[in-house]
């Protein structure tokens, strides 16, 4: 984080903290309240699936591209999944061009685990010729405006893009795969993982931190649940710690909240 943001943090910290101590958030939300969620799918026609997500002022686009590749040797009967996140410089004054840094890598790996561990994509359905050819699903997260909680927004966008993605039909002849672009089937998507990120600020825990809250938070915990409500990925991040009470509150808040967020995102995709 740059020095500018450090200074801003010190000035803002007082305001954000004194409000939280009296049970209020800087933008007037309840501690267990998300910012407005807007998900639009099919925004990029060149992609096999796509979504634009607005979570308050946080904005990002997720594109799903499918390519014919080779299955991994240890999963010869499955397609492959690759999640990548780019924190492009237009989204935040501290983002810099270049290869993904540790923040972008953490973001993409947390999203990847949410999709992978919930087994949301039926990867076996994406095998073309066992051990030879399969579909590789590339999920690319492109952050446009960073106003906090990129984790949850990124998974919402990825899930929305995947749930509406189409897989081209293929013909296999003499071990050659021919892709028929204008004949497609829906991507085999069978779960709906949702993550809820909880910020710990002093003794308080709150969901969906905006950037001002992220700057002052001690630590965060992202909990990803599947449609059944089971936990399929967790990630504590940032340099603070979670004492037992904060941990339990955060976990319960996240699991409870995920049901509502899943409904919201689903409704947005269907409309």
């Amino acid at each position: 984080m740059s020095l500018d943001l450090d200074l801003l943090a010190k000035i803002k910290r007082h305001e954000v903290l004194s409000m939280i101590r009296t049970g209020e958030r800087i933008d007037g939300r309840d501690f267990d309240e998300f910012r407005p969620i807007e998900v639009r799918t099919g925004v990029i026609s060149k992609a096999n699936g796509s979504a634009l997500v607005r979570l308050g002022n946080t904005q990002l686009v997720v594109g799903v591209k499918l390519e014919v590749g080779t299955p991994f040797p240890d999963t010869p009967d499955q397609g492959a999944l690759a999640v990548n996140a780019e924190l492009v410089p237009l989204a935040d004054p501290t983002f810099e061009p270049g290869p993904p840094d540790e923040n972008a890598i953490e973001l993409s790996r947390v999203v990847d685990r949410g999709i992978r561990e919930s087994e949301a994509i039926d990867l076996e359905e994406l095998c073309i010729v066992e051990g030879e050819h399969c579909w590789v699903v590339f999920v690319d997260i492109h952050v446009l405006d960073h106003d906090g909680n990129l984790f949850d927004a990124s998974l919402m966008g990825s899930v929305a893009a995947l749930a509406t993605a189409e897989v081209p039909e293929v013909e296999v002849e003499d071990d050659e795969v021919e892709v028929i672009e204008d004949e497609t089937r829906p991507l085999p998507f069978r779960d709906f993982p949702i993550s809820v990120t909880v910020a710990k600020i002093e003794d308080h825990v709150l969901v969906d931190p905006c950037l001002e809250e992220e700057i002052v938070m001690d630590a965060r915990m992202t909990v990803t649940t599947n449609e059944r409500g089971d936990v399929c990925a967790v990630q504590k991040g940032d340099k603070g710690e979670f004492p037992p009470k904060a941990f339990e509150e955060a976990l319960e808040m996240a699991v409870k909240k995920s049901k509502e967020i899943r409904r919201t995102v689903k409704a947005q995709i269907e409309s």
Partner: protein
Amino acid sequence: MAEEPERLIAEDGTRLDGRKPDELRPLRIQAGVLKRADGSAYLELGSNKIIAAVYGPRELHPRHKQKPDRAVIRFRYNMAPFSVDERKRPGPDRRSIEISKLSKEALEPALFTEYYPRTAIDIFVEVLQADAGTRCAGITAASVALADAGIEMKDLVAAVAAGKVDGHIVLDPMYYEDGYGEADVPLAMMPKYDAITLLQMDGNMTEDEFKEAVRLAKKGCKIIYREQRRALKRKYGGE
């Protein structure tokens, strides 16, 4: 990975390597094993072999990376190419970059970074042989190396994973249990404060199972904590 064993946990609850569900693998920690580093530690947990070194607090270059009010912590987790079954390509990959970031964040709560403004504290973890649980073993070793370097700390950080294997919640999963189990929950904590400083999970668990895994991993951390302190006492006296 070799063929999946038919079952990972026997009917009487015994694991493949003969352990009980809440039992750690044999643990050995030695403080101060390197001459050049300011602090160091060597750790074996089962067949994991990990070496950690600390350099600093030392001057940080380039200077614009210095923090006027605190030290910058840098952590590098690195796996030796020969540490795993299939040779690992040298250098950082996405997994090790993520582990390095989370390990740094796991140790930082224990450090008084404000005592050492404008400096860097560099922590290096080399995995010489890996058998599941290396990120936690690395944090445990690094914490001892930090103490060995004489850096003031609120507490040592102890780390170990719990997992779900054949429907059982077990402590410190080894290779097969990690590879074929249903979930993995690495955790680091400051035992004196009962505070979690690293927590990850992947797999599938109910909320209650996850809580149980966290409880078990915390219990394991307390045993590891005792060994960390013993290692330091062996070097610096007091035992």
